[in-house]
C-alpha cells in the first residue's frame, strides 16, 4: 500500500482472501450435495401423471459437492463488511448489534415449524409471542392498538396511510393530499402515491425543522396527514411537535410518524404522548432483528383508538376463556396487506431483544445511542461543517462543504472510510443538506470503536487538504475498487449465462468476461 495511507489505520489491515467464481462456473455434471431419504411409497412415472406439463430439463442449475458449496458461500461471506466486524455509522439505518440468542430461539422447533394454518388450540405459544410483543410495543410508543402484519418499514408506511385513508373515508371524504417534509426518506412520498394521494412538499425552515408558518398555510380540508420523522432525518427532535399536531388536528388531518428514528426515543419519550395518531416501527432497526444484507424487515403499525377499526385483518384477540384467537370479523378493516400475520420470525427476535433489555436496558440503550452521537459530534465538528447547530439526538449530520473546496465530496470520504476498516456513513441524505454526511453510531459502539472512527474521519479530513486525489480515488485496499455503476445500468447484465450461449441483455454488450 506504500504511501496510500498518510497514517496507519488502527482498525484494519490488508489481508489475503480467496477468489471465487460464480457457482455456475464451478459446476460439473454428475456431482451432488444431497441424498434423498429412501422413498417409502411406490415410485411414480412423472410423465404419466403430469402429461404435457412434465418438465425434463433444469437448465444451468448447478451440480457441486457439499465441501465446494460450503467454501463457495464462506468465501463470498468474507467479502462482506458486517456489524460483527465493526461499526456501521449509517445514519437513519440503526445498524446495532444483533444478539445471537435471538437466532437460537427463532429456530426452536415449535416456533420455526409452526404452520400458519395450524389450529388455534395448537398455536397458543406463537399467539402469546405476538401478544407480549404487541403489548410491549404499545407501551413503548404510547399508542392504543397495533398490527404486526407489515413486512418492512415501507410496508408499514403503506399500512399506516391506508388507515389514514380509511379513517377519512369513514368521515365521508378520503381527502386528497399528504404533506411530506423535503427532508423525508424516499419511501414516504412513494407510499403516499401508492395509496392514491398527491404528495405536497413541505419545505424545512433554516434549522432543518418543520416550518410552522408554512405548515399552517398548507394544511387545509384536503390534507389527509403529515408524514413526519421525529427525531427528524437531521437527528433533531421537533421541539414544537405538539404545535404541529395541533395545526393538523384543527383541520381534521392526522399526524403520521415514520419510526425510523425510534432508537432515540425508546424509554424516554412516547410518540403517543406528543400527538402522533399512527406510526410504524422498524423491528430491523430499533429492535435489533438482523438486517441480513437487505431484509427481512418487519414494520408493525401502532395507532390511536380512532384508527383501530381499520386495522388489517386478522387482529389478535382474547376469547372469554382467556385463550388467544385471530379475529377476522372486522367489517371496517382496510383488508390484508400480506398473507398470514407478518414476518413472525422477526417478532421472536424483537421480543427476545426486549426481554434481554427490560425497561432499564431499553432506557440505557437510548441514552447510550444519544451519547454516542453527541460524542462524535463534539469530536468532529471542528473538521467538518455542521449545517444545523441544533442539539443532536441519536445521529449527527455534517456536510462536505469544507472538503468540497478541494474537490473531495461526501461520497469520496465515505469510500475512503472503507480503507480504514469501516462502512461508509449515509452519503448525500437527507436531501436538504448539500453533500450530507449522516452518522448514526447506535448504542452498540464502545468508546474505543468511536475513537477509531474519529481518528479515521479526522485523518480523511487531513487527506482532503493534503492529498485530495487519494480520497477521490478511494477505496484502495478493498477487494474491488470503485465499480462502474453507469455501465451496469446502461447495459444491464442481470443473470449469468453459459459461455457458449452467452447473449447479453442488450445486443451491443459484449460478454467479454466469459
Amino acid at each position, binding site marked *: 500500500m506504500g504511501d496510500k495511507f498518510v497514517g496507519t489505520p488502527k482498525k484494519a489491515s490488508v489481508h489475503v482472501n480467496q477468489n471465487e467464481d460464480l457457482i455456475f462456473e464451478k459446476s460439473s455434471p454428475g456431482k451432488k*450435495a444431497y441424498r434423498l431419504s429412501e422413498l417409502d411409497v411406490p415410485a411414480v412415472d412423472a410423465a404419466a401423471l403430469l402429461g404435457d406439463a412434465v418438465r425434463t430439463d*433444469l437448465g444451468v*442449475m448447478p451440480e457441486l459437492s457439499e465441501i465446494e458449496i460450503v467454501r463457495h458461500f464462506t468465501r463470498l*461471506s468474507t467479502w*462482506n463488511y458486517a456489524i460483527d466486524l465493526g461499526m456501521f455509522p449509517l445514519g437513519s439505518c440503526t445498524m446495532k448489534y444483533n444478539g445471537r440468542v435471538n437466532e437460537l430461539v427463532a429456530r*426452536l422447533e415449535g416456533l420455526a415449524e409452526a404452520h400458519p394454518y395450524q389450529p388455534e388450540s395448537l398455536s397458543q405459544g406463537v399467539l402469546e409471542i405476538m401478544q407480549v410483543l404487541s403489548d410491549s410495543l404499545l407501551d*413503548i410508543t404510547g399508542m392504543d392498538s397495533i398490527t404486526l402484519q407489515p413486512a418492512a418499514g415501507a410496508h408499514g408506511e403503506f399500512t399506516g396511510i391506508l388507515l389514514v385513508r380509511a379513517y377519512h373515508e369513514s368521515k365521508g371524504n378520503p381527502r386528497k393530499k399528504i404533506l411530506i417534509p423535503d427532508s423525508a426518506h424516499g419511501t414516504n412520498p412513494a407510499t403516499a402515491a401508492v395509496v392514491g394521494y398527491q404528495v405536497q412538499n413541505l419545505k424545512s425552515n433554516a434549522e432543518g425543522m418543520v416550518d410552522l408558518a408554512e405548515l399552517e398555510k398548507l394544511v387545509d380540508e384536503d390534507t389527509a396527514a403529515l408524514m413526519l420523522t421525529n427525531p427528524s432525518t437531521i437527528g433533531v427532535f421537533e421541539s414544537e411537535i405538539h404545535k404541529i399536531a395541533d395545526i393538523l388536528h384543527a383541520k381534521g388531518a392526522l399526524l403520521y410518524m415514520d419510526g425510523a428514528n425510534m432508537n432515540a426515543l425508546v424509554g424516554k419519550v412516547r410518540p403517543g404522548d406528543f400527538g402522533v395518531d399512527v406510526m410504524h416501527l422498524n423491528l*430491523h432497526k430499533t429492535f435489533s432483528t438482523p438486517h441480513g*444484507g437487505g431484509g427481512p424487515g418487519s414494520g408493525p403499525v401502532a395507532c390511536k383508538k380512532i384508527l383501530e377499526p381499520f386495522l388489517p385483518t386478522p387482529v389478535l384477540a382474547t376469547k372469554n376463556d382467556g385463550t388467544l384467537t385471530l379475529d377476522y370479523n372486522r367489517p371496517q378493516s382496510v383488508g390484508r396487506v400480506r398473507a398470514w400475520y407478518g414476518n413472525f420470525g422477526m417478532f421472536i427476535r424483537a421480543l427476545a431483544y426486549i426481554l434481554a433489555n427490560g425497561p432499564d436496558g*431499553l432506557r440505557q440503550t437510548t441514552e447510550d445511542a444519544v451519547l454516542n452521537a453527541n460524542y462524535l459530534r463534539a469530536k468532529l465538528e471542528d473538521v467538518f461543517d455542521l449545517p444545523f447547530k441544533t442539539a443532536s439526538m441519536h445521529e449527527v449530520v455534517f456536510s462536505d462543504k469544507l472538503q468540497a473546496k478541494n474537490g473531495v465530496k461526501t461520497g469520496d470520504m465515505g469510500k475512503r472510510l472503507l480503507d480504514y476498516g469501516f462502512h461508509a456513513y449515509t452519503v448525500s441524505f437527507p436531501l436538504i443538506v448539500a453533500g450530507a454526511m449522516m452518522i448514526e453510531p447506535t448504542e452498540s459502539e464502545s468508546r474505543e470503536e468511536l475513537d477509531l472512527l474519529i481518528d479515521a474521519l479526522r485523518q480523511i479530513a487531513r487527506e482532503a487538504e493534503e492529498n485530495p486525489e487519494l480520497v477521490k480515488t478511494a477505496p484502495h485496499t478493498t477487494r474491488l475498487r470503485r465499480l462502474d455503476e453507469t455501465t451496469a445500468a446502461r447495459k444491464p447484465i442481470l443473470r449469468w449465462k453459459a459461455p457458449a450461449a452467452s447473449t447479453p441483455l442488450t445486443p451491443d454488450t459484449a460478454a467479454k468476461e466469459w
Partner: protein
Amino acid sequence: MRYLPKSPSDREAMLADIGAKSIDDLFATVPAEYRLTRDLNVPRQHGEQEVIEHFKAFAEKNALGYASFLGAGAYRHYRPVLIDTVVSRGEFLTSYTPYQPEIAQGTLQALFEFQTMICELTGMEISNASMYDGSTGAAEAVMMAVRVTGRNGAVVARTVHPEYREVLTTYAQHQSIPKTEVDYDPATGRVDLAKLDAAITDDTACVLIQSPNFFGTIEDVAAIAEIAHKKGALLIVSIAEAISLGIVKPPVEADIVAMEAQSFGVPVGYGGPYCGVIACKEKFLRQMPGRLAGETKDLDGKRGFVLTLSTREQHIRREKATSNICTNQSLVALMVTVFLTVYGKGLKDLAEQNLAKAHYAAQTIGGSGKVLFGGAPRFNEFVLQGSKTAEAANAALLEKKIVGGLPLERFYPELGPNTSLWCATELTTRAQIDAAAEVLK
C-alpha cells in the same frame, strides 16, 4: 446490560468531553411534559438462559410432535443443514443492504446467483432480488402490468391463493384497478377458459393465475396465455409451491412470474419471513419493482456486482417510483440460493418424491371420500371431499396427533363443509399417511 459496551466511567468521560453535566442535558430539546418519568411496562431484564427458557415455554404451547398435512401456500420441506450454516455467518446475517459494493460483494454475488437460478427455473429472462412474499409480489406484479400496458383492469382466477387475492384487493383499491374474478371448472379445478375469455376487456392489463393453483392443480398456462395475449393483456403466473418447478414445465408463456420461494429452504415459521420474487420478460425491466443485482467491472477491470437501475426506486424517484419497497428479504433469498445450490439439477428428484408422496396420499386418504378435480394433473396437494365435515374429521385426527387438511368452506363456500385441502411432501411418511387414512376410514 450485556449488549452495551460502556463502563460507567466511559459514560462520565464522554459526557465531560461533550460538555454535558448529565445525560438529561442531551434530551433537553424534548419538552418536559413529554418526557417519560416511569419505567416502561415491558418484561423485566432477563438473562440469556432465562430468554431461552421463556421461548421454550412458548414453543411447547404449539403443535409439537404432530404429523401435518397442511400446505396451502406454506410448505414443509427438508432444509439442508448448510442453509443455516451459511446464513448464520455474521458477514451475511449482520451486513447492510449492499449500497457500498466494494465491501458487499458476498451479498451481491449471491443475489446475482439467486436471480440466475430463478430465471432458469421459471423460464423468465430477468428476476429481481426478492419481494416481501408471494402475496405482495403478486399485487406488485399486477401494478407493474398496469404500468406496462397503460390499461387498468386485472382479471384474477379464483384458484389463486385466497389470501393473495385479498392482498391484491387492498393494493388495487387505491390504484383504481378494477378486479374481476374468474371461476374454475368444477370438473378440473382449473380456470374456466370460456369465462376467462369473456372477462377480458380492452382495458384488461393482466390476467393473474396461480399454477399449481390453490387446489394443487396445474393450470393450462399455454391456453390461458393465448387467450390473454389475443386481447392484449399480459399473463402473470403466481407460483406458491416452488418445488413444483423441478418437475412441472415452467410458465414460459407468461409475461411475469410472481412467485413465493418459501419451499426452497425457508421454514414455514408461522407465515414469515418468506421470499417473494418477480421474474419477467426483459422488455419490462424498467417497470420492475424491487432491487436488482447486476454485473459490472471495477476500475481495474475485475468482475464485480452492484445494485443497479435504482432510478426505478423510491430513494431516487420518490413518488414516481415503481414501488415504495425498500428493505426486502435478502437473507431469505440467500437461504433459497443455498438450497438451490445444494439440490441443483437434483431439484427434479426432490420434486418427483413430492409427486410420489402426494399421489400415494391421494389414493390412500382419498379412499375415505372423493378426491375432487381429477380431470387435471396436480403436484403435491389435493382436495378431499369427505363423508363428514372437515372440522369433525380434523378433530378425530388431532386425537391421533395428526393435523389434517385445511377446511376449504371458509374460502370456497360452494365446496361445502366436507372438503379440505391436503398436502404431502418428501417429509410426509407412508406411516403418517396410512395413520390418517385409518382415522378417516
